[in-house]
């Protein structure tokens, strides 16, 4: 299923013969765009790793004042679509364009991808390893780099991979910031030359980049840290308390303050009116479509995630890899692939909510697979063995043991997919039922003609809709789990 876009890309790439493929690949422009995208992806990922790990440590391990509230606020940027972040930043800092602009905007919206898994890892990692290191004469800082970083490396790298793939596939922020990235080549192909072949070939290049990154991450991931029985205690920040607090507040202001203030300004300054019933109806659509998408993604992710958590086989790795490849593709490519297959093989479903949900599943499967894998890891097989020895069959065991234990992680993943679906634009435009608008499409319609004031209510509601699952996500990952 995750392979559908790849099949489509191969079909479209080679429809005019291999020489066209070679021509497109051989253009210096192609290499240049790929390099620009990779540079951006690497820089943003590096920045997200630093920001994500630091903020995760502050909310999960330090005695930062108000760290629970910060835990929520620091995750909220996930709810900000990159194109909203883009146009609000431009309206606040008009000079922020090009690489710097794309770098800032993408870093600020995607660092929670690192923060979330790292905070969870910091909560569950065995603190005695750190204590041993301290007793051996290392300072707290040395311990952090020598021991803690090693413990959270798999989580941080997994988050970093999501960031890198997200940056590769992003079009909203790079186009607004006028940074010529690889996706721009793909879009130009559709918009300026109306030619799908070069777009498909460029899409294949993205797939190759994504696979390389995914394999690289897997090599570097290493072993998952040993889970401790105890909760680590909060580390006193001491003199670093004030700078840490100031930095955290600054981060929240940059990630949330800029969009919120900017939207408020547009709302107040604009003369356009908007209909509350329209906004409400659109919100209802968005919630319904995203919920459907999140549930379908979850259903498809469950077998893959369980396979990946329980069996380290070649099949599981292959399926996971295909999912990640899809994640690096821009929404338009996945959307067109489903147009191609949908109209031929499932015309009854074409341009219906199930088809749109399916597109979301292809796009966001890795987010859900990761969550399912983590969730299932909370339910070790030995517990299932015990349950069965106590007279419960496979299904009852699943229901009474595996599901309740894996549920929080799985639900968190579903929430993450939900908010990502709510933000999605290009595939939604292609595959939504005719006449059904979501917050993202209404926002696009208005920003395309510079009707920012008219767009602001939709952007504001989108932030709220996406923020609710973000808070839920956060509560699961950052709360003190006294029952463990």
């Amino acid at each position, binding site marked *: 299923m995750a392979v559908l876009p790849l099949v489509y890309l191969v079909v479209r790439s080679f429809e005019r013969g291999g020489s066209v493929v070679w021509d497109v690949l051989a253009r210096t422009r192609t290499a240049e765009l790929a390099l620009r995208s990779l540079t951006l992806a690497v820089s943003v990922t590096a920045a997200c790793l630093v920001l994500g790990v630091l903020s995760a440590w502050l909310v999960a391990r330090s005695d930062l004042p108000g760290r629970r509230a910060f835990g929520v606020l620091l995750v909220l940027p996930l709810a900000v679509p990159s194109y909203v972040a883009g146009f609000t930043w431009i309206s606040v800092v008009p000079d922020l364009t090009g690489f710097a602009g794309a770098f800032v905007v993408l870093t600020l919206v995607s660092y929670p991808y690192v923060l979330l898994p790292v905070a969870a890892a910091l909560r569950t990692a065995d603190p005695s390893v750190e204590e041993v290191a301290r007793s051996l004469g290392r300072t707290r800082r040395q311990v952090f780099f020598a021991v803690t970083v090693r413990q959270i490396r798999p989580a941080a790298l997994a988050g970093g991979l999501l960031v890198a793939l997200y940056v590769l596939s992003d079009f909203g922020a790079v186009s607004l910031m006028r940074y010529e990235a690889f996706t721009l080549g793909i879009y130009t192909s559709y918009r300026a030359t109306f030619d799908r072949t070069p777009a498909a070939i460029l899409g294949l290049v993205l797939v190759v980049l994504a696979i390389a990154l995914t394999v690289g991450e897997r090599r570097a991931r290493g072993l998952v840290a040993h889970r401790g029985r105890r909760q680590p205690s909060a580390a006193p920040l001491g003199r670093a308390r004030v700078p840490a607090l100031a930095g955290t507040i600054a981060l929240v202001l940059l990630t949330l303050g800029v969009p919120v203030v900017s939207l408020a300004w547009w709302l107040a300054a604009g003369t356009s009116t908007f209909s509350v019933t329209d906004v409400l109806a659109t919100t209802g659509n968005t919630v319904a479509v995203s919920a459907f998408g999140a549930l379908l993604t979850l259903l498809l992710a469950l077998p893959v995630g369980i396979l990946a958590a329980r069996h380290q086989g070649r099949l599981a790795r292959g399926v996971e890899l295909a999912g990640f490849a899809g994640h690096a593709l821009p929404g338009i490519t996945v959307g067109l692939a489903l147009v191609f297959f949908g109209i031929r093989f499932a015309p009854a479903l074409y341009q219906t909510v199930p088809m749109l949900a399916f597109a979301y599943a292809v796009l966001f499967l890795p987010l859900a697979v990761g969550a399912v894998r983590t969730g299932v890891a909370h339910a070790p097989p030995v517990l299932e063995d015990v349950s069965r020895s106590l007279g419960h069959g496979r299904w009852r065991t699943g229901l009474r043991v595996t599901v309740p234990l894996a549920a929080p992680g799985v639900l968190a993943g579903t929430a993450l997919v939900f908010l990502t679906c709510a933000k999605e634009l290009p595939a939604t435009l292609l595959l939504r039922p005719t006449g059904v608008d979501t917050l993202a499409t209404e926002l696009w319609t208005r920003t395309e003609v510079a009707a920012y004031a008219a767009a602001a209510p939709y952007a504001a509601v989108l932030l709220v809709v996406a923020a609710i699952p973000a808070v839920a996500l956060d509560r699961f990952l950052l709360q003190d789990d006294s029952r*463990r």
Partner: protein
Amino acid sequence: MSGLTVKRLVAGYGGDPVLREVDFEVQEGGLLAVLGPSGCGKTTLLRVLAGFHPASSGEVWLGERQLTADVPPERRGIGIVPQEGALFPHLSVAGNVGFGLRRGERGARVEELLDLVGLSGFGARMPGELSGGQAQRVALARALAPRPGVVLLDEPFSALDAGLREELRADVRATLRSAGATALLVTHDQEEALGMADLVAVLRDGAVAQLARPQTIYSSPADLGVALFVGEAVTFSGIARSGLVRTPLGTLPVSGEGHGTVLLRPEQLILGTDGVPSIVEDVLFHGHDASVLLRLADGTRVRSRVQGGVTGRAGDTVAVSVNGTALFFGDMP
């Protein structure tokens, strides 16, 4: 409760058999310890008995009922106590113990079992709030609750510290007795196996090397390997002629002839005024007894276990004599 019989059991992964023809029987209400080093097939044996892994051939009988491969774990009536307990983290202690019971019978039975394992009043606690020993008791109560035919205990004390282990062993043994449970304990700890079980099966390379009462295993091991595995030993190689063999501790009577190994337990080495002179190199005092490292005249080092009393100090010269009969294992031709 019923007895457990295993006949010519073979099982493995892929083409590699891990268990090759395992045979044993546990009497109803008995406690059999399966003792073996890691990798000998203990875990596979448990998984096959509990129904998590298929046997390649052989038979498993629970009383009059044969447990063929198509009997799933949930219909075997075999309870398990995994390493470190593996309590359900999302359920309370009472929820864990009552997990295998029907709704109606839970209340009273849960109380009864918590009482049995000495944890009355702990029902509302969550697993995270228990100590390791308490968690292990809850795991045992949980396994016993549905009155299984047999309870399998998989290294249940390995994660506990020594003092606690000792205490818990006695408690578990008493609990199993008073519950009238047939039990199979898997362990790599000889003290545990010998101390707890009615019968011990020494498992080696996927087969039962010896099945006997603990005293028999210790005093008359089937071969040198078993002898070395079940306890500390002092060994000398020598040649037995007419029932006698010369060792650095003197000439000892043995049963056997030809080249072989003489084996003594450290407690058979008596320190006193009679015997072969030796020099005390080190003394490890354990309280109830002490372990004395001795150097004999020819340089051989041997260990003696001494009950209380005077043990001397490093550098002292003492005389060593042998108490009881030495074991002799002839070399394989």
